[in-house]
């Protein structure tokens, strides 16, 4: 889910950036440092939407660097347990399938796929119902529920399920 959040960060700036464009330099350094990163608490920082406040700079002892506390608003994307998401399938194997929503990877284990869907191997591995009416393969869109999340240094990884009511394939690419 997307969130709009105010975060704070201490930015260190080298004296060569001081001058008329101090604030612009600070903001562009913030964008380079923060956009695209991921944390366990807030998820992916997708974009910075504005700077709320830049505090007074403190010169660090022993070096010429100055630390500015910066408060900024940003859009973050963080998956939550219990959340319903629509994801595009990227890979299917006999253990389950991988799907993607935005910057987040989700794995759905075959234990969490309805029992009437069987794995079919081949050029285009897929999960199909016994009557062939529903198929999950690469590029299918599925609606799933997040049941667990794990945060790495640079990405968030989730476990999902489609074994609940109103979950499963939304869009079959072969019939589109």
């Amino acid at each position, binding site marked *: *889910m*997307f*969130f*709009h*959040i*105010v975060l704070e960060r201490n930015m260190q700036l080298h004296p060569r950036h001081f001058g008329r464009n101090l604030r612009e330099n600070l903001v*562009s350094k913030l*964008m*380079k440092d923060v*956009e*695209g990163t*991921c*944390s*366990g*608490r807030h998820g*992916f*920082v*997708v*974009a910075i*939407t504005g700077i709320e406040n830049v505090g007074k700079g403190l010169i660090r002892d022993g070096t010429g660097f100055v630390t500015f506390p910066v408060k900024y608003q940003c*859009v973050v*994307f963080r998956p*939550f*347990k*219990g*959340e*319903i*998401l*629509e994801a595009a399938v990227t890979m299917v194997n006999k253990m389950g399938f991988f799907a*993607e*929503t*935005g*910057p987040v990877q989700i794995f759905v*284990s075959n*234990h*969490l796929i309805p029992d009437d869907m069987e794995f079919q191997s081949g050029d285009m591995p897929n999960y199909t119902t016994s009557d062939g009416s529903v198929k999950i393969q690469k590029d299918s869109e599925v*609606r799933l*529920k997040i*049941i*667990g*999340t*794990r*945060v*790495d*240094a640079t990405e968030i990884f989730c*476990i999902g*399920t489609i*074994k*609940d*009511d*109103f979950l499963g394939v939304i869009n079959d690419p072969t019939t589109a």
Partner: protein
Amino acid sequence: MSEKGGRMFSLPTKTTPKSSLKSTAAKSKRGRKVQFGTEGSPDVNFSSPKSDGKFATPFGKGGKGEKAANGGKTHVAKESLSLELRVEQELPENIKCLMDCEAATILEGIQDQMVILSSDPTIKLPESFGSGLQYAKTGSYFTNPQSVRKVLQSLTKYGVSNSEICVIANTCPETVDEVFALVRSLEAKRSKITGPLKDVLDELAKLKTST
């Protein structure tokens, strides 16, 4: 903490591997109070904010397949009860939940600005921006976030939280049963909100863009 979280697929308890399958469910309650907090008190879930980074799954007992096969069905039934959206409890209060259509509007605005700023080669948008924007655009069914927000705001007086409203907007359910199936935390207020929810869904259906 995130590095630790990155390696930690296994669950805190190590005593269960030798335990018999018969008492799996009972032992799992004792060994993993943090996950199954909704069985009794919701407090247990937020008493450990660190567990956000840890991997919480019904089957992850060190990956013991046979346990999953036998204890799996009961675990899934119990877990589906505990998988209620707890956004407001887990995040600080100043965070605003965004619907996908709102996020798409904001991100598109930023992307337009980037066209102007692109003369500076050092500023470029991260990869997660592109995938986030694409997801927000394809996932959202509505073109006018303000009217959607206005329609759904009427549910707040019945105690529906902002995150639940966002899930309803993002999934665009067609029936009231679908809403209660997808957002289990609303089950408790079923009798109160069924009527207003039906009206809201009708309004949303009118606002939905035809594809």
